[in-house]
């Protein structure tokens, strides 16, 4: 793999966020918020007709992109801001770019800007991450 300043991280895509998976995550996380599992409640609150994906699940997509690129045990730091909702049925694409490569205890790491965009281009997550680079990268 290549890792230099400006190197784009291969995108991670999901075509169609599943409402059923939102329900599974609500159960795993014991999240009582009905906007993730009850369309009637979403509509009653004037939030539209689609369930709203959990922020940590959106973040999971960004993490998938990083792990697919740098390795399954590579994630060191992550700092993100949630800037917009993702709805059931949305397509999403996680992206990133290397902003620095440096040495730190344990080896070389890459600092990256990362994001998650909806299919209509709306940015849902923006932030930074640091991943450990495999030897030779």
């Amino acid at each position: 793999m290549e890792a230099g300043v400006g190197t784009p991280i291969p995108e991670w895509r999901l075509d169609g966020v599943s409402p059923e998976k939102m329900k599974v995550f609500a159960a795993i996380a014991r999240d009582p918020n009905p906007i993730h599992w009850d369309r009637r409640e979403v509509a009653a609150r004037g939030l539209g007709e689609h369930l709203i994906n959990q922020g940590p699940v959106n973040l999971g997509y960004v993490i998938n992109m990083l792990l697919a690129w740098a390795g399954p045990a590579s994630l060191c730091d992550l700092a993100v801001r949630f800037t917009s909702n993702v709805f059931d049925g949305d397509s999403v694409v996680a992206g990133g770019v290397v902003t620095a490569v440096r040495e730190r205890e344990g080896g070389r790491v890459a600092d990256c800007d990362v994001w998650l965009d909806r299919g209509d281009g709306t940015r849902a997550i923006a932030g930074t991450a640091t991943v450990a680079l495999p030897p030779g990268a």
Partner: protein
Amino acid sequence: MAVTQEEMQALVGYRFPGGEFTIERWENVLLCDVVGSEPLPDGLAHPAYLFHAPLAGAGMRIADMFELFRAESDEAVRAGEYRWEIHRPLRVGATYRMSGGVVGMERKESRKLGLMDVATFAIDAYDAEDGGLVASTTGTWLVLRSS
């Protein structure tokens, strides 16, 4: 009755009960599926655990957090920011000791979301076997206020 800024500010320093969280194989499989990933190799757990595992291990359900932050309803809380420092990868079958509490509170007025309390909490995860620090997590939630 409206929650005052002073009441919310008084939560800074509140310590969660604390406790442990074990990453079960079945739950990791489900979590990976939810985020669109195959289970990771070599017994690694998905880092997305760092949202709910620290809270659950620290003895706080999401509903408990809503109550602590005096949320006006279950949908009056939005994710704001997360910051994670991972010192060791999370592993399936491992047990982690969680310790943390509320570290910040700020009342703000947003053009988009209106009046809100920006609540920040931090939880550290330690390996229950050797006591080593595994991850430090900080979460910021937006607690929306009608008045």
